[in-house]
């Protein structure tokens, strides 16, 4: 759906990368200064390529020197700051892109977008009177209502506080599913990427460092504090007395703090490798209630004091556990061995699921 091959010098920084993305969300992930925003600008046409090409949905937008200007690309952009036009009402901001969209290309209707984003009561207001979260919701709607071929989101939640983020992230999820627009999403927040993305492209110093599914990419980190597993499951019936919610997975329930949402909703749980302990027998007399069964698929980490044990959970998901090399030796954690993975519920972040 989208094919990107960018070679570009930007001052003393240069981009040299290629990746492709399909339907759904392709996340560009990496530290600040890795070139994520520059890639967004290049795809949007705000900068010119020195060489390479950009193809979206079969249309060539840039190809070795030829450059389609931004207003003819039909690519929507949601920036970190909402960038609403201050002299226009929310309604006029929402309709702005539609003005320039050929009639035949107007696939996305106003009402469902306004409903999904919950901005119907803001239509007559001026942007300056909206809160940051409201502004960003309007910016999402505005980009969407131009019926773009592709939606670029450049850290759309970075300028918002935690509460606003939790409110808008599910909206982006809904937009992704309901309006079937491919999205390129820039972020340096693992939670956002793991939750939204079908594919993650990790950038480092203007190059692609790794790419793959969120589960594969985040498990492949080298620093043990950055190794994160993504385990998929569905929300189960919550325990109201203790305010806990189970995520049912084939390997067993993962207990989350708080009441996470409607029963049956598919979720992805992020588990840091350093929050996982291993046991050969189903433990008894422990405070930990999340016990997942699986087998050791491999051990990596060499001669250092800690190693990473890669578990194949029942059901097929992978889970990485960071343990000392001594434990690995003493428990004889070798491929094929059945183990139980213990995850502290208190360590799990219930927000990103």
């Amino acid at each position: 759906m989208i094919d990107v091959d960018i070679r570009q010098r930007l001052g003393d920084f240069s981009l040299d990368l290629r990746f492709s993305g399909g339907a759904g969300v392709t996340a560009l992930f990496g530290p600040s200064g890795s070139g994520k925003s520059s890639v967004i600008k290049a795809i949007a046409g705000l900068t010119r390529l020195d060489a390479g090409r950009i193809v979206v949905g079969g249309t060539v937008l840039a190809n070795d020197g030829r450059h389609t200007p931004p207003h003819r690309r039909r690519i929507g952009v949601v920036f970190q700051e909402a960038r609403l036009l201050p002299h226009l009402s929310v309604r006029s901001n929402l309709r702005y892109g539609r003005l320039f969209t050929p009639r035949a290309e107007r696939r996305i209707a106003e009402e469902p977008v306004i409903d999904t984003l919950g901005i119907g009561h803001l239509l007559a207001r001026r942007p300056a009177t909206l809160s940051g979260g409201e502004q960003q919701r309007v910016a999402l709607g505005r980009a969407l209502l131009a019926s773009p071929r592709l939606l670029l989101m450049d850290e759309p939640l970075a300028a918002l506080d935690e509460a606003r983020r939790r409110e808008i992230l599910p909206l982006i999820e809904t937009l992704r599913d309901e309006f079937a627009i491919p999205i390129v999403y820039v972020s340096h927040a693992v939670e956002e990427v793991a939750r939204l993305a079908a594919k993650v492209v990790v950038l480092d110093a203007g190059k692609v460092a790794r790419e793959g599914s969120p589960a594969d990419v985040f498990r492949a980190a080298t620093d043990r504090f950055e190794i994160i597993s993504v385990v998929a499951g569905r929300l189960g019936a919550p325990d109201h007395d203790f305010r806990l919610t189970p995520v049912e997975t084939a390997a067993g329930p993962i207990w989350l703090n708080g009441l996470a949402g409607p029963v049956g909703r598919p979720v992805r749980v992020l588990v840091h490798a350093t929050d996982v302990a291993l046991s050969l027998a189903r433990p008894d007399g422990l405070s930990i209630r999340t016990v997942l069964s699986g087998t050791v698929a491999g051990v990596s980490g060499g001669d250092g004091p800690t190693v990473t044990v890669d578990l194949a959970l029942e059901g097929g998901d992978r889970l990485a556990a960071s343990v000392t090399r001594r434990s690995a030796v003493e428990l004889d954690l070798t491929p094929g061995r059945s183990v139980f993975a213990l995850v502290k519920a208190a360590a799990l972040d219930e927000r990103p699921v």
Partner: protein
Amino acid sequence: MPELSPAAWSAIALSFKVAAVATLWGVPVATALALLLARGHFPGKALLDGIIHLPLVLPPVVTGYALLLLLGRKGPIGAFLDQQFGIVFAFRWTGAVVAAVVMALPIIVRAIRLSIEAVDVRLEQASGTLGAGRLATFFLVTLPLSLPGILAGATLGFAKALGEFGATITFVSNIPGETRTIASAIYTASQTPDGDAEALTLSAVAAVLGLAALVASELLARRARGALS
């Protein structure tokens, strides 16, 4: 307060006409030039900026003389306009308009340029990603957002045109009913025995009009800014 003579009233009316027409012509021209200077990248930009501002530092009589040489009936541009279109500026009130536009242009351009430069380029980029071409973005984003500066520039330019003297009298002389503006009328009165009263009264009128325009400019700019925030 002494009564104003019919001749004085005619000078006031003429000044208003000249200043109003000069503002109507000057503001679009100034807006185009300001946009070029604020957003354009081209060789000779500093030179263009200098030429626009030249009337601010030249003796006004030099500007008027240059206009006479260029736009007079025998001047290269003046002769062409006269022969091709029958347009004559020299010694006509329309020439006073030309002189006023040239003299007011630097301050109008300056006010508009500052407000265009204050428009966030990122908003123009956002407009582009929504499908608006450069022209559409200018009219829908840049222009409305720089409206305070354009209004302020227009009123300042109007005030400047109202009081223009040196270039006007050099280019179009001081013909009662045709080119005798307030400033020229004050000059004439001050050179006439017993003209002191008229000169003083007209000076007071000029001061009041100028002050009113300055206050209006400030209020308009403030109101337009308020409407945006």
